[in-house]
Protein backbone atom coordinates (compact mmCIF):
# COMPACT_ATOMS: atom_id res chain seq x y z
CA UNK A 1 0.00 0.00 0.00
CA UNK A 2 1.33 3.43 -0.92
CA UNK A 3 1.38 5.68 2.13
CA UNK A 4 2.89 8.67 0.37
CA UNK A 5 1.88 9.62 -3.13
CA UNK A 6 3.20 12.56 -5.15
CA UNK A 7 1.35 13.42 -8.32
CA UNK A 8 2.78 15.71 -10.93
CA UNK A 9 4.62 18.07 -8.58
CA UNK A 10 5.95 21.29 -10.03
CA UNK A 11 7.93 23.91 -8.14
CA UNK A 12 8.84 27.29 -9.45
CA UNK A 13 10.82 29.79 -7.29
CA UNK A 14 9.85 33.10 -8.89
CA UNK A 15 10.83 31.89 -12.32
CA UNK A 16 13.52 29.40 -11.29
CA UNK A 17 11.96 26.06 -12.16
CA UNK A 18 13.20 23.32 -9.85
CA UNK A 19 10.74 20.46 -10.20
CA UNK A 20 8.91 19.43 -13.37
CA UNK A 21 6.06 16.98 -12.89
CA UNK A 22 7.56 14.69 -10.25
CA UNK A 23 5.36 11.69 -9.46
CA UNK A 24 6.34 8.95 -7.08
CA UNK A 25 4.92 6.56 -4.53
CA UNK A 26 6.34 5.30 -1.28
CA UNK A 27 5.08 1.91 -0.15
CA UNK A 28 4.46 1.09 3.48
CA UNK A 29 7.46 -0.49 5.17
CA UNK A 30 9.94 0.16 2.40
CA UNK A 31 13.17 2.12 2.44
CA UNK A 32 13.00 4.40 -0.54
CA UNK A 33 16.10 6.34 -1.57
CA UNK A 34 16.06 9.46 -3.67
CA UNK A 35 19.30 10.09 -5.47
CA UNK A 36 20.44 12.55 -8.08
CA UNK A 37 23.19 15.05 -8.82
CA UNK A 38 23.49 18.33 -6.89
CA UNK A 39 20.68 20.66 -7.87
CA UNK A 40 18.42 17.83 -9.01
CA UNK A 41 15.68 19.02 -6.63
CA UNK A 42 15.95 16.39 -3.89
CA UNK A 43 15.90 18.73 -0.90
CA UNK A 44 13.20 20.87 -2.54
CA UNK A 45 11.11 17.75 -2.90
CA UNK A 46 11.60 16.99 0.82
CA UNK A 47 10.65 20.54 1.71
CA UNK A 48 7.50 20.26 -0.38
CA UNK A 49 6.47 16.92 1.11
CA UNK A 50 6.92 18.22 4.67
CA UNK A 51 5.09 21.49 4.10
CA UNK A 52 7.98 23.97 4.22
CA UNK A 53 7.32 24.91 0.58
CA UNK A 54 4.04 24.65 -1.26
CA UNK A 55 4.20 23.16 -4.75
CA UNK A 56 3.29 25.37 -7.70
CA UNK A 57 1.22 22.49 -9.07
CA UNK A 58 0.44 18.92 -8.18
CA UNK A 59 -0.91 16.96 -5.25
CA UNK A 60 0.60 15.14 -2.29
CA UNK A 61 -1.32 12.53 -0.30
CA UNK A 62 -0.14 10.95 2.90
CA UNK A 63 -2.17 8.10 4.39
CA UNK A 64 -4.82 8.86 1.75
CA UNK A 65 -5.21 12.46 2.94
CA UNK A 66 -4.38 15.46 0.84
CA UNK A 67 -1.51 17.32 2.55
CA UNK A 68 -0.56 19.58 -0.37
CA UNK A 69 -1.54 22.78 1.45
CA UNK A 70 -1.24 21.55 5.05
CA UNK A 71 1.00 23.37 7.50
CA UNK A 72 4.26 21.91 8.73
CA UNK A 73 3.03 21.07 12.22
CA UNK A 74 -0.11 19.35 10.97
CA UNK A 75 1.87 17.13 8.62
CA UNK A 76 4.29 16.33 11.46
CA UNK A 77 1.40 15.37 13.75
CA UNK A 78 0.05 12.98 11.11
CA UNK A 79 3.20 10.93 11.59
CA UNK A 80 5.60 12.31 9.01
CA UNK A 81 8.96 13.25 10.47
CA UNK A 82 12.12 14.54 8.85
CA UNK A 83 15.77 15.24 9.45
CA UNK A 84 17.75 18.01 7.83
CA UNK A 85 20.78 18.18 5.60
CA UNK A 86 22.20 20.98 7.78
CA UNK A 87 21.96 20.04 11.46
CA UNK A 88 18.78 21.47 12.91
CA UNK A 89 18.60 20.90 16.66
CA UNK A 90 18.01 23.04 19.77
CA UNK A 91 21.64 24.05 20.32
CA UNK A 92 21.49 25.51 23.83
CA UNK A 93 19.39 22.72 25.27
CA UNK A 94 20.89 19.50 26.56
CA UNK A 95 20.56 16.29 24.57
CA UNK A 96 17.84 15.10 26.94
CA UNK A 97 15.90 18.37 26.70
CA UNK A 98 16.10 18.19 22.92
CA UNK A 99 14.51 14.77 22.88
CA UNK A 100 12.02 15.64 25.61
CA UNK A 101 10.60 18.55 23.63
CA UNK A 102 9.84 16.14 20.79
CA UNK A 103 8.28 13.61 23.16
CA UNK A 104 6.04 16.31 24.68
CA UNK A 105 4.66 16.95 21.22
CA UNK A 106 4.18 13.25 20.57
CA UNK A 107 2.05 12.85 23.70
CA UNK A 108 0.03 15.95 22.79
CA UNK A 109 1.10 17.92 25.86
CA UNK A 110 2.04 20.94 23.81
CA UNK A 111 -0.48 23.25 25.49
CA UNK A 112 -0.45 21.63 28.88
CA UNK A 113 -0.19 24.10 31.76
CA UNK A 114 -1.41 21.87 34.56
CA UNK A 115 1.70 19.78 35.10
CA UNK A 116 5.42 20.33 35.51
CA UNK A 117 7.47 18.86 32.72
CA UNK A 118 10.24 17.75 35.05
CA UNK A 119 7.76 15.59 36.99
CA UNK A 120 5.95 14.00 34.06
CA UNK A 121 7.13 10.41 34.41
CA UNK A 122 5.66 9.20 31.15
CA UNK A 123 7.56 11.83 29.17
CA UNK A 124 10.76 11.38 31.15
CA UNK A 125 10.73 7.60 30.71
CA UNK A 126 10.01 7.79 27.00
CA UNK A 127 12.74 10.41 26.49
CA UNK A 128 15.24 8.22 28.34
CA UNK A 129 14.16 5.25 26.23
CA UNK A 130 14.93 7.14 23.02
CA UNK A 131 18.19 8.33 24.52
CA UNK A 132 19.20 4.71 25.12
CA UNK A 133 18.00 3.56 21.71
CA UNK A 134 20.13 6.17 20.01
CA UNK A 135 23.09 5.34 22.26
CA UNK A 136 23.47 8.78 23.79
CA UNK A 137 22.91 8.06 27.48
CA UNK A 138 26.37 9.29 28.42
CA UNK A 139 25.74 12.63 26.73
CA UNK A 140 22.33 13.09 28.40
CA UNK A 141 23.08 16.39 30.09
CA UNK A 142 25.53 17.84 27.61
CA UNK A 143 24.37 20.97 25.76
CA UNK A 144 23.78 19.98 22.14
CA UNK A 145 26.07 22.70 20.79
CA UNK A 146 29.03 21.31 22.75
CA UNK A 147 28.90 17.88 21.13
CA UNK A 148 30.93 16.65 18.17
CA UNK A 149 29.46 16.95 14.70
CA UNK A 150 28.90 13.21 14.51
CA UNK A 151 26.94 13.19 17.76
CA UNK A 152 24.86 16.14 16.63
CA UNK A 153 23.96 14.09 13.56
CA UNK A 154 22.86 11.31 15.90
CA UNK A 155 20.75 13.76 17.87
CA UNK A 156 19.22 15.03 14.63
CA UNK A 157 18.17 11.45 13.96
CA UNK A 158 16.85 11.06 17.50
CA UNK A 159 14.67 14.16 17.13
CA UNK A 160 13.28 12.76 13.92
CA UNK A 161 12.40 9.50 15.63
CA UNK A 162 11.14 10.84 18.94
CA UNK A 163 7.64 11.46 17.66
CA UNK A 164 7.38 7.77 16.74
CA UNK A 165 6.59 8.64 13.12
CA UNK A 166 5.01 6.41 10.50
CA UNK A 167 7.10 7.85 7.71
CA UNK A 168 10.66 9.12 8.21
CA UNK A 169 12.40 11.38 5.73
CA UNK A 170 16.16 11.61 6.15
CA UNK A 171 17.96 14.33 4.21
CA UNK A 172 21.59 13.29 3.75
CA UNK A 173 22.07 11.81 7.23
CA UNK A 174 25.74 11.10 6.58
CA UNK A 175 26.67 14.53 5.20
CA UNK A 176 30.01 15.63 6.57
CA UNK A 177 30.73 12.39 8.44
CA UNK A 178 33.90 10.33 8.08
CA UNK A 179 33.81 6.68 7.02
CA UNK A 180 33.63 5.31 10.55
CA UNK A 181 30.90 7.75 11.63
CA UNK A 182 28.97 6.94 8.43
CA UNK A 183 29.08 3.24 9.22
CA UNK A 184 27.86 3.80 12.75
CA UNK A 185 24.99 6.07 11.66
CA UNK A 186 23.91 3.56 9.00
CA UNK A 187 23.88 0.82 11.64
CA UNK A 188 21.82 3.12 13.82
CA UNK A 189 19.37 3.90 11.03
CA UNK A 190 18.93 0.20 10.33
CA UNK A 191 18.25 -0.40 14.02
CA UNK A 192 15.72 2.37 14.51
CA UNK A 193 13.67 2.17 11.34
CA UNK A 194 12.41 -1.33 11.87
CA UNK A 195 8.71 -1.44 11.13
CA UNK A 196 8.73 2.08 9.73
CA UNK A 197 8.79 3.55 6.27
CA UNK A 198 11.85 5.50 5.26
CA UNK A 199 12.62 7.94 2.47
CA UNK A 200 16.26 8.90 2.33
CA UNK A 201 18.17 11.41 0.25
CA UNK A 202 21.81 10.44 0.14
CA UNK A 203 24.91 11.06 -1.93
CA UNK A 204 26.91 8.13 -0.58
CA UNK A 205 26.06 5.29 -2.96
CA UNK A 206 27.33 2.67 -0.54
CA UNK A 207 24.78 3.86 2.00
CA UNK A 208 22.02 4.00 -0.62
CA UNK A 209 22.58 0.50 -1.97
CA UNK A 210 23.06 -0.81 1.55
CA UNK A 211 19.73 0.56 2.85
CA UNK A 212 17.30 1.03 -0.01
CA UNK A 213 14.60 -1.35 -1.20
CA UNK A 214 13.70 0.99 -4.03
CA UNK A 215 15.42 3.99 -5.53
CA UNK A 216 14.10 7.01 -7.38
CA UNK A 217 16.59 8.95 -9.46
CA UNK A 218 15.97 12.66 -9.92
CA UNK A 219 17.71 14.71 -12.56
CA UNK A 220 17.01 18.35 -13.37
CA UNK A 221 13.76 18.19 -11.43
CA UNK A 222 12.37 15.13 -13.19
CA UNK A 223 12.17 11.48 -12.27
CA UNK A 224 14.69 9.67 -14.41
CA UNK A 225 13.99 6.18 -13.11
CA UNK A 226 12.43 4.29 -10.25
CA UNK A 227 13.23 0.72 -9.34
CA UNK A 228 15.09 -1.73 -7.17
CA UNK A 229 18.79 -1.11 -6.56
CA UNK A 230 19.66 -3.72 -9.18
CA UNK A 231 17.38 -2.15 -11.76
CA UNK A 232 18.90 1.25 -11.08
CA UNK A 233 22.42 -0.16 -11.30
CA UNK A 234 21.53 -1.64 -14.66
CA UNK A 235 19.85 1.44 -16.09
CA UNK A 236 21.89 3.01 -18.86
CA UNK A 237 20.11 6.35 -18.46
CA UNK A 238 21.00 6.57 -14.78
CA UNK A 239 24.60 5.64 -15.45
CA UNK A 240 24.86 8.42 -17.98
CA UNK A 241 23.21 11.03 -15.79
CA UNK A 242 24.58 10.27 -12.40
CA UNK A 243 26.76 7.29 -11.72
CA UNK A 244 29.01 7.73 -14.72
CA UNK A 245 30.23 4.87 -16.87
CA UNK A 246 31.93 2.20 -14.76
Amino acid at each position, binding site marked *: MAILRLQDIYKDFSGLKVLFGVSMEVQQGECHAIIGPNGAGKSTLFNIITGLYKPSRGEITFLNQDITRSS*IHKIARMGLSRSFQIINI*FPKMTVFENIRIAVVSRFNRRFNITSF*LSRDRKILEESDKILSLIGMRDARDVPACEMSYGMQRQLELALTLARDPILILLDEPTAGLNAEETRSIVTLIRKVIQGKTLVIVEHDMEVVFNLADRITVLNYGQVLATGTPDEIRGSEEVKKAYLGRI
Partner: protein
Amino acid sequence: MNRRRALKIVGGGIASLFLLLLPVLLPEVDVHLATEILIFALFAVSFNLLLGYCGLLPFGHAACFGVGAYATALIFKHITGMPFLITLLISALSGFVGALIIGFFCVRLSGSYFALISLAFQMFLYAVALKWRDVTNGDDGMGVTRPDLYLPGLGTLSLMNIQYLYYVTLVIVALAILACYLFLKTPLGHAAVSMRENVIRASFLGYNVFLTRLAIFSFSGFLAGISGALFVVFEEFVATTVMDVHMSFTVILMATIGGTGHFLGPVLGAVFLMVFQDWISSLTKHWWLFMGIVFVMVVLYAEGGLIGLFKWEKIRALFVSEKES
Protein backbone atom coordinates in the same frame (compact mmCIF):
# COMPACT_ATOMS: atom_id res chain seq x y z
CA MET B 1 25.35 21.81 44.09
CA ASN B 2 23.98 21.55 47.63
CA ARG B 3 25.86 24.67 48.65
CA ARG B 4 24.36 26.44 45.69
CA ARG B 5 20.89 25.41 46.79
CA ALA B 6 21.63 26.44 50.36
CA LEU B 7 22.82 29.83 49.15
CA LYS B 8 19.62 30.26 47.16
CA ILE B 9 17.46 29.36 50.16
CA VAL B 10 19.36 31.67 52.51
CA GLY B 11 19.33 34.48 49.93
CA GLY B 12 15.62 33.99 49.26
CA GLY B 13 14.89 33.90 52.99
CA ILE B 14 16.77 37.13 53.67
CA ALA B 15 15.10 38.85 50.70
CA SER B 16 11.63 37.70 51.83
CA LEU B 17 12.27 38.83 55.40
CA PHE B 18 13.49 42.18 54.15
CA LEU B 19 10.41 42.62 51.96
CA LEU B 20 8.13 41.73 54.85
CA LEU B 21 9.82 44.08 57.29
CA LEU B 22 10.48 46.86 54.79
CA PRO B 23 7.65 49.19 55.95
CA VAL B 24 8.96 48.89 59.50
CA LEU B 25 12.61 49.35 58.58
CA LEU B 26 12.38 52.18 56.07
CA PRO B 27 10.74 55.62 56.12
CA GLU B 28 7.45 56.13 54.32
CA VAL B 29 9.00 57.75 51.28
CA ASP B 30 10.99 54.59 50.66
CA VAL B 31 7.88 52.44 51.10
CA HIS B 32 6.39 54.45 48.23
CA LEU B 33 9.44 53.72 46.14
CA ALA B 34 9.38 50.04 47.09
CA THR B 35 5.71 49.74 46.07
CA GLU B 36 6.47 51.27 42.69
CA ILE B 37 9.45 48.94 42.27
CA LEU B 38 7.25 45.92 42.95
CA ILE B 39 4.79 47.03 40.27
CA PHE B 40 7.54 47.56 37.71
CA ALA B 41 9.19 44.29 38.69
CA LEU B 42 6.03 42.46 37.64
CA PHE B 43 5.82 44.49 34.43
CA ALA B 44 9.45 43.65 33.65
CA VAL B 45 8.89 39.95 34.36
CA SER B 46 5.89 39.94 32.01
CA PHE B 47 8.05 41.60 29.36
CA ASN B 48 10.86 39.11 29.84
CA LEU B 49 8.47 36.23 29.32
CA LEU B 50 8.50 37.42 25.72
CA LEU B 51 12.08 38.56 25.27
CA GLY B 52 13.93 36.13 27.51
CA TYR B 53 11.84 33.02 26.99
CA CYS B 54 10.15 33.39 23.59
CA GLY B 55 12.88 35.39 21.88
CA LEU B 56 10.37 38.09 20.91
CA LEU B 57 11.28 41.72 21.52
CA PRO B 58 8.15 43.89 21.71
CA PHE B 59 8.71 47.63 21.39
CA GLY B 60 5.14 48.27 22.48
CA HIS B 61 4.65 46.23 25.62
CA ALA B 62 3.21 49.28 27.39
CA ALA B 63 0.04 48.67 25.36
CA CYS B 64 -1.02 45.84 27.72
CA PHE B 65 0.15 47.78 30.79
CA GLY B 66 -1.92 50.74 29.60
CA VAL B 67 -5.01 48.67 28.88
CA GLY B 68 -4.90 47.29 32.43
CA ALA B 69 -4.35 50.78 33.82
CA TYR B 70 -7.23 52.39 31.91
CA ALA B 71 -9.53 49.45 32.71
CA THR B 72 -8.96 50.02 36.43
CA ALA B 73 -9.39 53.79 36.17
CA LEU B 74 -12.60 53.50 34.16
CA ILE B 75 -14.10 50.89 36.49
CA PHE B 76 -13.40 53.01 39.56
CA LYS B 77 -14.75 56.07 37.80
CA HIS B 78 -17.99 54.53 36.58
CA ILE B 79 -18.84 51.72 38.99
CA THR B 80 -18.99 52.86 42.56
CA GLY B 81 -18.18 50.27 45.17
CA MET B 82 -16.58 47.79 42.78
CA PRO B 83 -14.37 45.51 44.91
CA PHE B 84 -10.66 46.05 44.36
CA LEU B 85 -9.78 42.43 43.65
CA ILE B 86 -12.53 42.05 41.05
CA THR B 87 -11.37 45.26 39.39
CA LEU B 88 -7.87 43.87 39.36
CA LEU B 89 -9.06 40.65 37.76
CA ILE B 90 -11.06 42.49 35.10
CA SER B 91 -8.06 44.70 34.35
CA ALA B 92 -5.81 41.67 34.05
CA LEU B 93 -8.33 40.06 31.70
CA SER B 94 -8.43 43.30 29.69
CA GLY B 95 -4.66 43.06 29.34
CA PHE B 96 -5.10 39.43 28.30
CA VAL B 97 -7.72 40.24 25.65
CA GLY B 98 -5.73 43.25 24.43
CA ALA B 99 -2.66 41.03 24.04
CA LEU B 100 -4.73 38.35 22.34
CA ILE B 101 -5.88 40.83 19.69
CA ILE B 102 -2.48 42.50 19.26
CA GLY B 103 -0.75 39.12 19.35
CA PHE B 104 -3.01 37.74 16.65
CA PHE B 105 -1.38 40.18 14.24
CA CYS B 106 2.10 40.30 15.76
CA VAL B 107 3.22 36.83 16.71
CA ARG B 108 3.21 35.47 13.18
CA LEU B 109 6.17 37.82 12.66
CA SER B 110 9.52 37.89 14.37
CA GLY B 111 12.59 40.07 14.78
CA SER B 112 12.29 43.72 13.81
CA TYR B 113 8.87 43.23 12.16
CA PHE B 114 7.42 41.90 15.39
CA ALA B 115 9.03 44.73 17.37
CA LEU B 116 7.67 47.43 15.10
CA ILE B 117 4.16 46.04 14.67
CA SER B 118 3.82 45.79 18.45
CA LEU B 119 4.99 49.41 18.66
CA ALA B 120 2.39 50.37 16.05
CA PHE B 121 -0.40 48.86 18.16
CA GLN B 122 0.88 50.64 21.24
CA MET B 123 0.93 53.96 19.37
CA PHE B 124 -2.58 53.27 18.10
CA LEU B 125 -3.85 52.73 21.65
CA TYR B 126 -1.91 55.77 22.79
CA ALA B 127 -3.63 57.86 20.12
CA VAL B 128 -7.02 56.49 21.19
CA ALA B 129 -6.32 57.38 24.82
CA LEU B 130 -5.14 60.81 23.78
CA LYS B 131 -7.98 61.69 21.41
CA TRP B 132 -10.99 59.96 22.94
CA ARG B 133 -11.34 62.65 25.54
CA ASP B 134 -14.93 61.84 26.45
CA VAL B 135 -13.83 58.54 27.88
CA THR B 136 -10.17 58.96 28.82
CA ASN B 137 -9.94 62.71 29.39
CA GLY B 138 -6.98 62.79 26.99
CA ASP B 139 -3.60 63.86 28.30
CA ASP B 140 -5.21 65.57 31.29
CA GLY B 141 -5.79 62.09 32.62
CA MET B 142 -8.19 60.88 35.26
CA GLY B 143 -7.88 60.91 39.00
CA VAL B 144 -8.55 57.65 40.82
CA THR B 145 -9.38 57.23 44.47
CA ARG B 146 -7.60 54.35 46.09
CA PRO B 147 -10.20 51.79 47.06
CA ASP B 148 -10.65 49.93 50.31
CA LEU B 149 -9.89 46.26 50.36
CA TYR B 150 -12.13 43.94 52.30
CA LEU B 151 -10.42 40.77 53.44
CA PRO B 152 -12.34 38.14 55.39
CA GLY B 153 -10.89 37.90 58.87
CA LEU B 154 -8.86 41.07 58.54
CA GLY B 155 -11.68 43.50 57.91
CA THR B 156 -11.44 46.49 55.62
CA LEU B 157 -8.03 47.87 54.75
CA SER B 158 -7.78 51.36 53.36
CA LEU B 159 -5.26 51.40 50.55
CA MET B 160 -4.77 55.10 51.23
CA ASN B 161 -2.44 53.81 53.90
CA ILE B 162 0.82 53.20 52.05
CA GLN B 163 1.82 50.35 54.32
CA TYR B 164 -1.34 48.43 53.48
CA LEU B 165 -0.93 49.24 49.81
CA TYR B 166 2.65 48.00 49.98
CA TYR B 167 1.65 44.67 51.51
CA VAL B 168 -1.28 44.16 49.13
CA THR B 169 0.99 44.96 46.16
CA LEU B 170 3.67 42.64 47.56
CA VAL B 171 1.25 39.72 47.84
CA ILE B 172 -0.28 40.26 44.39
CA VAL B 173 3.08 40.77 42.66
CA ALA B 174 4.61 37.79 44.46
CA LEU B 175 1.70 35.56 43.42
CA ALA B 176 1.81 36.79 39.82
CA ILE B 177 5.58 36.30 39.57
CA LEU B 178 5.22 32.85 41.14
CA ALA B 179 2.51 31.98 38.58
CA CYS B 180 4.87 33.09 35.82
CA TYR B 181 7.71 31.02 37.28
CA LEU B 182 5.54 27.92 37.53
CA PHE B 183 4.13 28.51 34.05
CA LEU B 184 7.62 28.27 32.62
CA LYS B 185 7.99 24.81 34.16
CA THR B 186 4.99 23.47 32.24
CA PRO B 187 5.17 21.84 28.80
CA LEU B 188 3.76 25.05 27.24
CA GLY B 189 6.50 27.11 28.90
CA HIS B 190 9.15 24.74 27.57
CA ALA B 191 7.55 24.88 24.12
CA ALA B 192 8.03 28.65 24.10
CA VAL B 193 11.72 28.25 24.90
CA SER B 194 12.13 25.65 22.16
CA MET B 195 10.74 28.17 19.68
CA ARG B 196 13.21 30.78 20.84
CA GLU B 197 15.96 28.25 20.19
CA ASN B 198 14.84 26.92 16.82
CA VAL B 199 11.43 27.79 15.49
CA ILE B 200 11.68 25.67 12.34
CA ARG B 201 12.62 22.53 14.25
CA ALA B 202 9.80 23.12 16.71
CA SER B 203 7.21 23.24 13.93
CA PHE B 204 8.64 20.09 12.35
CA LEU B 205 8.12 18.42 15.72
CA GLY B 206 4.43 19.27 15.55
CA TYR B 207 4.32 22.55 17.48
CA ASN B 208 1.93 25.21 16.27
CA VAL B 209 4.25 28.20 16.56
CA PHE B 210 1.52 30.79 16.08
CA LEU B 211 -0.81 29.43 18.76
CA THR B 212 1.97 28.75 21.25
CA ARG B 213 3.34 32.26 20.91
CA LEU B 214 -0.14 33.75 21.03
CA ALA B 215 -0.85 31.90 24.29
CA ILE B 216 2.34 33.22 25.87
CA PHE B 217 1.86 36.72 24.51
CA SER B 218 -1.64 36.78 26.02
CA PHE B 219 -0.40 35.50 29.38
CA SER B 220 2.26 38.19 29.32
CA GLY B 221 -0.51 40.71 28.60
CA PHE B 222 -2.44 39.38 31.59
CA LEU B 223 0.53 39.99 33.89
CA ALA B 224 1.20 43.42 32.36
CA GLY B 225 -2.50 44.21 32.89
CA ILE B 226 -2.15 43.44 36.60
CA SER B 227 0.88 45.69 36.89
CA GLY B 228 -0.92 48.47 35.00
CA ALA B 229 -3.88 48.21 37.36
CA LEU B 230 -1.65 48.32 40.44
CA PHE B 231 0.19 51.30 38.98
CA VAL B 232 -3.03 53.31 38.68
CA VAL B 233 -4.06 52.48 42.22
CA PHE B 234 -0.60 53.47 43.43
CA GLU B 235 -0.46 56.71 41.43
CA GLU B 236 -4.15 57.55 42.03
CA PHE B 237 -4.08 58.83 38.50
CA VAL B 238 -4.00 57.59 34.92
CA ALA B 239 -2.89 59.43 31.81
CA THR B 240 -1.56 58.58 28.39
CA THR B 241 1.93 58.20 29.86
CA VAL B 242 0.98 54.67 30.95
CA MET B 243 1.10 53.56 27.35
CA ASP B 244 3.60 55.80 25.67
CA VAL B 245 6.90 54.92 24.06
CA HIS B 246 8.76 55.95 27.19
CA MET B 247 6.93 53.31 29.21
CA SER B 248 7.67 50.61 26.61
CA PHE B 249 11.33 51.46 26.56
CA THR B 250 11.60 51.74 30.33
CA VAL B 251 10.62 48.10 30.63
CA ILE B 252 13.08 47.12 27.89
CA LEU B 253 15.81 48.91 29.87
CA MET B 254 14.82 47.21 33.10
CA ALA B 255 14.87 43.73 31.62
CA THR B 256 18.07 44.28 29.66
CA ILE B 257 19.97 45.93 32.49
CA GLY B 258 18.84 43.28 34.95
CA GLY B 259 19.48 40.41 32.54
CA THR B 260 17.04 38.61 30.29
CA GLY B 261 18.71 35.24 30.65
CA HIS B 262 17.59 34.71 34.24
CA PHE B 263 14.08 34.65 35.62
CA LEU B 264 14.87 37.24 38.31
CA GLY B 265 17.04 39.43 36.06
CA PRO B 266 14.18 41.85 35.21
CA VAL B 267 13.28 42.12 38.90
CA LEU B 268 16.84 43.14 39.70
CA GLY B 269 16.75 45.52 36.74
CA ALA B 270 13.55 47.15 38.06
CA VAL B 271 15.08 47.56 41.52
CA PHE B 272 18.32 48.96 40.19
CA LEU B 273 16.76 51.33 37.66
CA MET B 274 14.14 52.74 40.02
CA VAL B 275 16.59 53.23 42.91
CA PHE B 276 19.23 54.68 40.60
CA GLN B 277 16.69 56.98 38.97
CA ASP B 278 15.41 58.09 42.37
CA TRP B 279 18.93 58.90 43.53
CA ILE B 280 20.34 60.48 40.39
CA SER B 281 17.25 62.58 39.70
CA SER B 282 17.66 64.16 43.13
CA LEU B 283 21.15 65.28 42.06
CA THR B 284 20.61 66.45 38.49
CA LYS B 285 17.79 67.12 36.11
CA HIS B 286 19.85 65.46 33.33
CA TRP B 287 19.39 62.06 34.92
CA TRP B 288 18.51 60.35 31.64
CA LEU B 289 22.07 60.99 30.49
CA PHE B 290 23.36 58.88 33.37
CA MET B 291 20.76 56.20 32.74
CA GLY B 292 22.10 56.00 29.19
CA ILE B 293 25.65 55.65 30.43
CA VAL B 294 24.60 52.85 32.79
CA PHE B 295 22.81 51.06 29.95
CA VAL B 296 25.87 51.26 27.70
CA MET B 297 28.16 50.09 30.52
CA VAL B 298 25.96 47.11 31.30
CA VAL B 299 25.67 46.09 27.66
CA LEU B 300 29.43 46.40 27.14
CA TYR B 301 30.81 45.06 30.40
CA ALA B 302 28.15 43.00 32.18
CA GLU B 303 27.32 40.16 29.86
CA GLY B 304 23.91 38.80 30.72
CA GLY B 305 22.95 41.95 32.67
CA LEU B 306 23.48 42.75 36.33
CA ILE B 307 22.22 39.35 37.43
CA GLY B 308 25.17 37.88 35.52
CA LEU B 309 27.45 39.44 38.14
CA PHE B 310 25.89 37.12 40.71
CA LYS B 311 26.66 33.92 38.87
CA TRP B 312 27.31 30.97 41.15
CA GLU B 313 30.78 30.46 39.68
CA LYS B 314 31.73 34.04 40.48
CA ILE B 315 30.34 33.89 44.02
CA ARG B 316 32.07 30.57 44.58
CA ALA B 317 35.37 31.97 43.37
CA LEU B 318 35.20 34.62 46.10
CA PHE B 319 35.13 31.98 48.81
CA VAL B 320 36.99 29.08 47.32
CA SER B 321 40.60 29.45 46.28
CA GLU B 322 41.73 28.09 42.92
CA LYS B 323 43.75 25.36 44.63
CA GLU B 324 40.75 24.04 46.53
CA SER B 325 38.49 23.98 43.49
